[in-house]
């Protein structure tokens, strides 16, 4: 009987330790899960981080959606960054290209990354970009400034209630971390 308890304990402890390890792994699994969830539900306005193929949609001439552009710089990111236009009215299904201008204000090479965010988050799945400077880190030579295009389309399947979309980019100076 005594031996029985010891063995039962050992078995139970083993099981529970597996549960613990499993839950530790689950914590990490939440990271990709969250990204999937974000893409599906538009949680927190995360946008797809890679280009989609340009497919043609039927342009819905009866609807107009205002797309506003916002630019921001994280603290201590010495750059100039602006969009060429404030906002644009687009028909769902039509492809539009908008230019952004970014300039390195330092005398050193800078690696910066633009992080996109879209609001309302629920429209993220209908907002497709075929070209964007945010898909990868951008390297700027000292004092270099350049114009970068974003090409996008709003999927005509977007629900009727959405009339304004805000697209924001925040540049982060990643020079230090990407040296490696």
């Amino acid at each position, binding site marked *: 009987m*005594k031996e029985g*308890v*010891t063995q*039962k*304990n*050992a078995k*139970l*402890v083993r099981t*529970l*330790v597996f*549960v*613990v*390890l*499993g*839950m*530790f*792994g*689950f*914590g*990490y699994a*939440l*990271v990709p899960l*969250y990204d999937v969830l*974000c893409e599906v*539900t*538009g*949680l*927190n*306005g*995360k946008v797809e*981080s890679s280009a989609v193929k340009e497919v043609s949609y039927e342009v819905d001439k009866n609807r107009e959606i205002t797309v506003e552009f916002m630019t921001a710089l*994280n603290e201590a990111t010495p750059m100039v960054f602006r969009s060429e236009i404030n906002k644009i009215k687009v028909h769902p299904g039509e492809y539009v290209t908008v230019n952004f201008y970014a300039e390195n204000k330092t005398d050193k090479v800078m690696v910066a*990354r633009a*992080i996109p965010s879209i609001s*309302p*988050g*629920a429209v993220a799945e209908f907002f497709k970009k075929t070209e964007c400077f945010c898909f990868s880190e951008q390297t700027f030579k000292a004092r270099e400034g350049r114009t970068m295009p974003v090409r996008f389309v709003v999927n005509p399947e977007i629900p009727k209630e959405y009339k304004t979309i805000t697209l924001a980019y*925040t540049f*982060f*100076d*990643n020079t230090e*971390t990407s040296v*490696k």
Partner: protein
Amino acid sequence: MSAVVAEHDDHHDHGPAKGLLRWVITTNHKDIGTLYLLFALAMFFVGGAMAMVIRAELFEPGMQFVNPQFFNSMTTMHALVMVFGAVMPAFVGLANWMIPMMIGAPDMALPRMNNMSFWMLVAGVLLLASTLFMEGGAPASGWTLYPPLVLQTGKALPFAIFSVHLLGISSIMGAINIIATIFNMRAPGMTLMKMPMFVWTWLITAFLLIAIMPVFAGAVTMLLTDKFFHTSFFDAAGGGDPVLYQHIFWFFGHPEVYVMILPTFGVASTIIPVFARKPLFGYSSMVYATASIAFLSFIVWAHHMFTVGMPIAGELYFMYATMLIAIPTGVKVFNWTATMWKGSMTFETPMLFSIAFVVLFTMGGFTGLMMSVAPVDFQYHDTYFIVAHFHYTLVPASVFILMAAGYFWLPKWTGHMYDERIGRLHFWLSVVSVNILFFPQHFLGLAGMPRRIPDYAVQFADWNMISSIGGFIFGASQLLFLYIVIDTIKGGTGEKVTDEVWEDAAKHSLEWTLPSPPPYHSFTTPPTVIPTEHI
């Protein structure tokens, strides 16, 4: 397995080891329980001293005593010390003392691991406390440790994170031990549905701990690698998201607050029937309610983040799920009331604290219900209203029940009776001052005072002063508890306590069939009669 049951026949003659070393090497559940309880009591005063600093600074508008950075460290450390150093260890201490005696077991299932988890707790808390003296100060980002703010912590960050790891491992080991004890060490005839409520609630709590502590450990590890190894789990610059941390944290954090309240329910369900001289009303529905509260705690986390910017579907889902918690919680409160109904009540100190718990916890529950409503939470969130809410569910709930447990079982543990007059004085001072302390904070929050601010606009001055006065009285009153504990250990009133201590208590639970104090090794032969009055 190296840790096995220390159950050999020759142990009958062994008493505790001599001298101080006894406490270092002990594997006896009663000794370890005592260590946990005393350590928790000490940390209760350390965390309380930090609260006194906070209330002193907030006594009047203007900055009088500490700089804002230190103030933030105080709110952070107060929370961490109280949660991980005081309340959780106190319940583990109670579990250590009571679970083996309640289920008729000779000791915990894994006694050596038991010793290790206690000392790891001490190491973790000491490490945490040491960050106070480091360059850049202790963590000052709130106990939730949100990035990116927490990454601005000075030298203390890796130490604080390592301390969280230690505390986590300690809790996990404690939880494994409790599950193993309950599953494998019950006396013959002690079926699961005959176990006292305290054992039940701890069983469920232990499973919560095993599920959530590793997730928290993972989250803080991600913070660590984000800071030092260029990962970007939570850093937007590398494609991460700071809000993700909040999701992971609260996936841990919401069950975590139930880790502190479920054993509280268990103790209340143990004490009230004894003093009402009636069986607990609805034993099985209490078990199911506890289990459903535990389950719901895993699916409501984002109600801590209504204002973080979620899509409407998320807001609504988390609102509905959170509102559901009111149902099993309501069942508990109704059952306690029904247990008192038509009883034959007496009002010794443990009962007084338990009744205060039911009333004041319910008030915390009401404000919780109010905050579950997402649009209204857009006003309440991160104000003193939430500060009042969670302190109502922690201080006059968990802490009061820990006091009640102290008064209830001290005579059993020591064989001495505490001084009932001082006990009641302690109760009345506590219950009045705790309301002076926290009730005005509802008004402050509604009037627009954010939480975690070291200084405030003058229209908040009066209620803050009242709250601080309540805080000082509450803090000072707890010294009475310290006095009573010491006095009772030393002999108390000198009155000889019976095995039962409280009238007919032995009908409710096994520990009252043992002598007071119980022998160093109890139930080396399992009990034959299982009390069933409590079900």
